[in-house]
């Protein structure tokens, strides 16, 4: 187990290092941020000064060496625009994004499981066909456009919910969150729902196929033979069986939700790290772009690592295979 752990962590670090190289080279190889930062009337001397101040006059390999050295010390550079450590900027915006992703994750479960179970119990009913067509749309329609249409309907036409931004926050263990007050929650509803739609479609499919499989199992027949009510059979016997795979897969999807929040945050002008990324791309603020991407890569790798290790810890067969292989 220890050998497996060490090897798995080693692989994770390797992936992070590889991604760091790719990200740095692709972001730093192209474009000149000085053009954007400098006053349009600046002469060549001023440009050179800015370039030198940002360390952009050095050769690429030297910049890369410096980047790696600093990154190992937890320094991902200073934002050209805000003149603050890029990592600090990202971390400031992180609670907003994580809150959005978590609320969306919970929404996708709350929406997806009941609909999926229903569609699995009554596969031929028109309601189930409607649900399944809806989930296909959820998969294929561009998410940002759905967000826009929701704004048009609920914010512009009905004026029930705010069109964007983040609501008032309260501190929870020192982290600012907005879901604790109704006013804050009002701001979260539309963006979280939009972000949840894609995963809800996934959850609907997973729970539908899980339910269809479960109702054919002997344990459901036995539960009926015991005289249990259909409600109890569905809510306890079937639901408990499909919850485990659905929740596992969704846990894995948390990373992609954080990444996809880039789009949702832009649509709803939600001040998370995704919006910061898009703004920074527009302003060629390289250190912030790199810091965001490194953060996301680390989140992805860590989630994958945790899931793998949990599996190895829970399932003796995985451990056995690993020690043999």
């Amino acid at each position, binding site marked *: 187990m220890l050998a497996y752990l060490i090897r798995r962590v080693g692989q994770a670090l390797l992936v992070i290092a590889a991604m760091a190289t790719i990200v740095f080279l692709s972001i730093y190889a192209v474009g000149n941020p000085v053009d954007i930062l400098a006053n349009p009337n600046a002469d060549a001397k001023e440009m050179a000064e800015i370039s030198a101040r940002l360390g952009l006059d050095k050769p690429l390999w030297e910049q890369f060496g410096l980047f790696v050295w600093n990154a190992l010390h937890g320094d991902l550079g200073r934002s050209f625009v805000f003149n603050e450590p890029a990592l600090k900027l990202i971390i400031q915006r992180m609670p907003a994004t994580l809150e959005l992703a978590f609320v969306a994750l919970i929404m996708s479960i709350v929406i997806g499981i009941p609909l999926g179970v229903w569609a699995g119990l009554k596969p031929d009913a028109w309601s189930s066909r409607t649900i399944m067509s809806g989930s296909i749309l959820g998969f294929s329609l561009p998410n940002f456009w759905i967000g826009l249409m929701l704004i048009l309907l609920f914010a512009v036409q009905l004026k029930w919910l705010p069109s964007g931004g983040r609501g008032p926050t309260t501190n929870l263990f020192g982290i600012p969150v907005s879901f604790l007050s109704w006013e804050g929650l009002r701001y979260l509803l539309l963006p979280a729902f939009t972000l949840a739609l894609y995963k809800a479609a996934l959850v609907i499919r997973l729970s539908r196929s899980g339910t269809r499989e479960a109702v054919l199992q*002997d344990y459901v*027949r036995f539960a009926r*033979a*015991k*005289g249990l009510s259909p409600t109890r059979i569905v809510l*306890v016997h079937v639901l408990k069986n499909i919850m*485990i795979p659905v929740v596992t897969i969704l846990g894995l999807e948390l990373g992609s939700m954080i990444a996809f929040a880039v789009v949702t945050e832009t649509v709803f002008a939600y001040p998370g790290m995704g919006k910061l990324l898009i703004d920074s791309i527009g302003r060629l603020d390289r250190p912030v772009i790199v810091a965001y991407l490194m953060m996301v890569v680390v989140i992805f790798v860590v989630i994958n690592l945790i899931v793998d290790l949990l599996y190895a810890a829970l399932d003796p067969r995985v451990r056995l295979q690993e020690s043999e292989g």
Partner: protein
Amino acid sequence: MSGPILSIHDLKVEFGTRQGVVKAVDGVSLNVYRGEVLGLVGESGSGKSVTGLSILGLIDPPGRIASGSIKLEGQELIGLPEHELRRLRGERMAMIFQDPMTTLNPVLRIDTQMIETIRAHEKVSEKAARSRAEEALKRVGIPSPAERLLTYPHQLSGGMRQRVAIAIALLMSPALLVADEPTTALDVTIQSQIIAEVQQLCAETGTALIWITHDLAVVAGLADRIAVMYAGRIVEEGDVDPVLDHPRHPYTYGLLGSAPSNNRRGEKLAQIPGMTPSLANLPPGCAFAPRCAFAQEDCRVVPPALTHAGSRAWRCFHPVPDRETV
């Protein structure tokens, strides 16, 4: 009550398939009395399991009970509203299934699965239900039942799991237990232990038992009476010893001949020629005629009716001559 616990009359169960309507059970009549063990024997596809499921009202679409009558302790079950049927299931009639690996829900603890059964039928406290569950586990021979209650099914062996299923089925002391090949998936040694235990438990409580199996050896040691099914019909019925010693229907005769036994060691095992017919297109006459060594022209025209003789009955125009030993 002196009448039968279970009385089935002319039961017909149909399944709508792409090839048309299939009559899985075609006119089955049966009586089972208090404390009696009936062995329901047949190959897979003979309709024996479907008969068992119909008693509990567990036939799912595309299947449906087309006609007939099923009376449990005098009460007609066919046409009974679902909620009343549900009240009877688990309380007056219970069922156990073939594969103990899949009968118990893998993600629920044993205590959950036992206590929910009691509380579906009686308003009792969780604590009282738990002690009854523990008692029930002890009765089926499970050591340290209090600990077993807290385990998940995968932590138990196959035999243990089937014992748990039996304990659950007998929790409410039902009048009737339908056991659908409950020992087929188990080792032979465990199989005989479990058979002995079920037999004893049913005898103690007077529970009538329908034991569905394809294994004549099991029936020989367990059942009081036997009913042999072929292609949805009962082809021979009677007390277990006379039927097994002197089968009258050629199919029963063939089944006995194809069972391996000690006294014919070294001989080639007899087989019934041909295959179980597809229920979708049965021959017009006797369904067994195409495979039957005794079949004559009249067998292929109309299906034979039941011939009664004392406590026995068979469905054949040209039965195996009486007193011929196998």
